[in-house]
């Protein structure tokens, strides 16, 4: 059982939780993930670690309420417990040896992009942070991202923050203006990661993307998280979650990730009814 020490709503759909997990906190590195299970009947869900404090023994996760499991997680409050919390899984992002990096986050992906930017910034690397959201109300971690970057570019799809466009628009402009990035890290929805990878390909800029595929054990047993990278089968849980964006077969990944979408929707409706019933009672 893992105690929730803090719970904060970042926007209407995203929540931050600080969880007591001292052993995981001691070993965690940027890019790694945990798997949680809310209760006996729950799924095992992977979430990339958003932050960790080895002194305090805490691990921070940020999740978007998109499916039954994240909604169920969100019913828990401070001082309550998550049944299972296992990690740190996956290979940490290799951040050594870079001089000028663009760290790109899309929506909830900013929660994972932020610790990468922080680690690079703390190591003295020049960091441009580019973050994209659907609208201004959904913006999260603005101050935090600003604090760990040389420049923060905040984009909104609808322009409601006064800066209309996609993250790729900002990245392209910077590259065209002569910013010589030696690494681009893109974390967010698959179409965004694909678009960023396509943009950087002709410039030959190394591009790392972070995968969050279907997974059960997270230790290399089930094979559910397999993706095709450079024509070879790779397992996101032990070979990743980071991969070379120029090598990933995004089309296959997008299809595989929606395997259970209809079931997810049914489950979510079931959950909504559950919550509604509780409220009525």
């Amino acid at each position: 059982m893992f105690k929730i020490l803090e719970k904060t709503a970042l926007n209407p759909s995203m929540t931050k939780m600080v969880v007591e997990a001292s052993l995981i906190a001691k070993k965690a590195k940027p890019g790694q993930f945990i798997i949680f299970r809310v209760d006996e009947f729950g799924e095992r869900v992977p979430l990339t670690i958003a932050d960790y404090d080895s002194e305090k023994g805490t691990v921070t996760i940020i999740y978007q309420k998109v499916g039954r499991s994240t909604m169920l997680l969100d019913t828990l409050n401070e001082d309550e417990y998550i049944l299972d919390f296992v990690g740190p899984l996956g290979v940490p992002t290799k951040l050594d040896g870079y001089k000028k990096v663009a760290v790109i986050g899309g929506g909830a992906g900013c929660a994972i992009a932020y610790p990468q930017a922080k680690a690079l910034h703390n190591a003295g690397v020049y960091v441009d942070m580019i973050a994209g959201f659907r609208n201004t109300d959904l913006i999260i971690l603005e101050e935090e991202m600003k604090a760990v970057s040389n420049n923060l570019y905040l984009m909104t799809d609808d322009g409601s923050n006064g800066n209309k466009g996609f993250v790729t628009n900002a990245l392209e402009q910077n590259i065209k203006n002569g910013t010589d990035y030696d690494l681009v890290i893109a974390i967010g929805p698959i179409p965004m990661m694909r678009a960023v990878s396509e943009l950087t390909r002709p410039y030959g800029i190394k591009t790392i993307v972070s995968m969050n595929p279907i997974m059960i054990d997270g230790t290399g047993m089930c094979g559910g998280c397999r993706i095709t990278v450079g024509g070879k089968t790779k397992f996101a849980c032990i070979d990743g979650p980071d991969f070379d964006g120029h090598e990933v077969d995004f089309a296959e990944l997008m299809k595989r990730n929606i395997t259970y979408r209809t079931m997810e929707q049914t489950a979510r409706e079931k959950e909504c009814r559950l919550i509604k019933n509780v409220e009525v009672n």
Partner: protein
Amino acid sequence: MTNMCPTKTPMPEQAPNVRNKNFDEVASGYTVEMALNEAARCLNCKNHPCITGCPVSVPIPNFIEQVVKGEFEEAYKVITTASSLPAVCGRVCPQEAQCESKCVRGIKGESVSIGRLERFVADYHLQHADEAVEKPESNGHKVAVIGSGPAGLTCAGTLAKMGYSVTVFEAFHTAGGVLMYGIPEFRLPKAIVQKEISTLKKLGVDIETNMVIGKVLSVDELFEDGFEAVFVGTGAGLPNFMGIEGEGLIGVYSANEFLTRINLMKAYKEEYDTPIIRPKNVAVVGGGNVAMDAARSALRLGAENVYIVYRRSEDEMPARNEEIHHAKEEGVIFKLLSNPIRVIGNDDGKVVGLECVEMVLGEPDAGGRRRPVAKEGSNFVLNTDAVIIAIGNSPNPLIRSTTEGIEANAKGCIIVDENTMKTTKEGVYAGGDTVTGAATVIKAMGAGRNAAKSIDEYIKSK
């Protein structure tokens, strides 16, 4: 009086067309009367060849002798001098290739049904024994066991009985390894596994779940924490795929994933959140026990047509005869001498078929099995909405890739001394699938038991 009936006392089981629609156990086990009847078939012969066929050397004639006397608890005590998990072994051991293959009664007729008797004794104990288990006196030494499958649990149980303080680290949220995630409920009820595990806990074994050793703690850190020896029983690793077109389509599962969703994550039960595709037509690729488990599970999820696609003939199938027999009875269709060459998908990326080619058997290969050769122009398509790949796996890489000094062979199997199960790193022992590649529960248990003996000698000699 010896019962000279040439055949085994039949096992009561659910009718095939009933059981293929539920996950309840297929065989319900001997009654007292049946057990007495079968035990009386044992000649208690002088050389007891059956024991030599058992990887953990259960004193078989001795326990059967107790059954004959109606002393079932005594029989249980005899079995547990050698086996830590009798209710499991009685169900999933390939007895026909082990103890029963050596039985004198098998020369003229059928062998004594040692497996069914073992299961009877273990179940009798679980139903009748009082809860108290005597906890052995501690010898003050600490041993860590990584993985709570059959190898790890046996190693832990054996050491605990010697007085060691044993901690078992399990990566999943539930202990049991392949007994929980792999072998289906209808062959091995999970309540039985958990009862066996609770017996080990009463012996003083501490089980820590959600602990991925190699990530959250390293093997070296376990030594720093005061463990004097470490046993690695991390089992199956990455599932093998065929490397053919379409393996990334929606509806292609590894058998590990398909079975884990059903067994550990209980996707077949309404109250669990685990999603699973419930296919109408399924092709299971492979000819081992895991393939049979996957095929029979698919039937129970409601599939109408379930195919086993295997590139050799039935004679070469590695699955137990009993499993093949059960699968056929339940309606699994065997497409033998058929080799998959492509998974076919639709525009949504979903599986709609499996293209295969017919095979003929050619010359025997190095292992003595006749090598299948494709028959040109014999391609055919099975219309399926799911394909389950059950062609084995490579050992779990997490420990060897994160621990210096543990050497593995080209296939990724940890290298050990076959007698002592000692790895190339001092104080570290290993056994089970992580050493052998995919094998049986009882072989893993044998390795766990041998390792426990070596660990005992190692610690005492320090």
